[in-house]
């Protein structure tokens, strides 16, 4: 049976924009969450909007035999890959202990420091939870190549975040996402 997203995209391809609204409603947060791990919030929003725009433009080329999540996340991966790798932003450890915003900025910077394909593969499998074979389909590459890229992505992140991974206090701060910033901690 065809899923709602695939059906709606076929309607978009037929010239009706209303179903695009439903697709946006279902996918806006997953896509934003995908980009938000690598980009500042405003850029993440722009990137998600670009994916929906590309989805609309390419609706006529959609092959219904491809699962919709693979299709749309493939577009997202390409949008992300278009951005060149950037050097890591140095953030002092004391700042990381105090500020959730600084911690989020560090993780984004680490992801952005990866080459485009490694960055995409990492987020597809870890944030969007695609299997390796699905990630391969999304990026039009083989499962083996995805596995190879993923290993390199993990190695790159482990190297970029090395000092942080060895700092138990900072790691504890990361694992306590209940507070969006260090501000409330002291205000209580």
């Amino acid at each position, binding site marked *: 049976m065809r899923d709602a997203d695939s059906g709606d995209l076929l309607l978009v391809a037929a010239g*009706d*924009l209303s179903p695009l609204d439903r697709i946006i409603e279902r996918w806006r947060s997953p896509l*934003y969450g995908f980009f938000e791990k690598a980009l500042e919030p405003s850029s993440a*929003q722009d990137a998600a909007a670009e994916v929906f*725009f590309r989805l609309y433009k390419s609706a006529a080329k959609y092959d219904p035999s491809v699962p919709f999540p693979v299709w749309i996340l493939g577009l997202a991966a390409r949008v992300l890959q278009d951005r060149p790798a950037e050097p890591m932003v140095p953030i002092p450890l004391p700042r990381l202990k105090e500020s959730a*915003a600084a911690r989020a900025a560090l993780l984004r910077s680490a992801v952005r420091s990866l080459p485009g394909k490694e960055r995409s593969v990492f987020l597809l499998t870890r944030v*969007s939870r695609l299997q390796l074979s699905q990630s391969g389909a999304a990026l039009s590459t083989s499962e083996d190549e995805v596995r190879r890229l993923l290993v390199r992505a993990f*190695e790159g992140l*482990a190297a970029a975040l090395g000092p942080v991974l060895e700092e138990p206090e900072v*790691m504890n701060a990361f694992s306590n996402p209940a507070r969006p910033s260090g501000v409330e901690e002291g205000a209580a």
Partner: protein
Amino acid sequence: MTCAELRARLVDPASAGRGGHAPVVDHLEVCPDCRTLARAFGAVERLFRPDPGVEAPAGLRDKVFQRILERAGSGAPPVVADPAKRNLLIAGIVIILLILAGIFASIRRWGGAGTGAAPIERAPQPAATAPPASETASGTKAAGALTSAPVSDDEKNLIEPILPHDFLVACDVLASLDPFFPRDLAEGPVDGIPVPERIPGEEKDLTERVINWRYMAADERQRILSAHQAFLARPEAERQALRQRWTFYRALSPGEQAGLGRVVARTRDLDPRRAGRLKTELRTIAAYPPERRASAWRNHAFGKSITGQEAAAVERLWLALP
């Protein structure tokens, strides 16, 4: 099992069922490098655990449709979204064609009835201007007409100098951020921080900007024009400082921008003496080394009196400042 095979297993949890855990454990026992790497991979995995609560900003949908409308005509599918609106548009076109056919038939009948009929004079063509959105039939935005009508020189002259709308709308908040920046707006931009020559969005294609303008409601256009005039009326030093502040403000998320707007509203409510004292105290905090700012801010009476989102917006702004 080799080191490379072990690493491939570590990043692919689905492969755990293939071959069992025994070879992995055996390898880890004898390979200290892989033990270290396995711990690091596990830590990375935990850091990037997906956050199920993440919510996209509310304006995302509008951004998508604005983009579609702006780029309509570049080989994209039709732009009239609502089937009911599309039917109205088609009905309108059919009615116009029928009226034209009736006029044509009448002219032929009159022309054939008399001898020496006067030649038909061509009516002067009106200037090609796009109808305002509110004047289209039944309130329907005829998206095709708005996007395909030629862009007149008048429209270009009107739109070209107007700065990006999101910047203009934010100017009011930006101008009130004195307590959070090292110097007042009237003193000009902060030294050592670049002032962008162009506001992001200024470089947009003029035709796109005109089409965008056509879609705006009249009161929204008026708001933008007023903000634009208010910006131009400021001294050059203030305009530079606003451009500089904008680079920090636009890096915030929509939620953080809203939070900062509320903080500004709170500072406006203070009496002048208290506002002056607050400015001095906040600038003292902002001058601390980054690692000390957060703790000083969260212990400050004003920082404690506002919501978490508002305080986080200020913190985020300071994080970006040198």
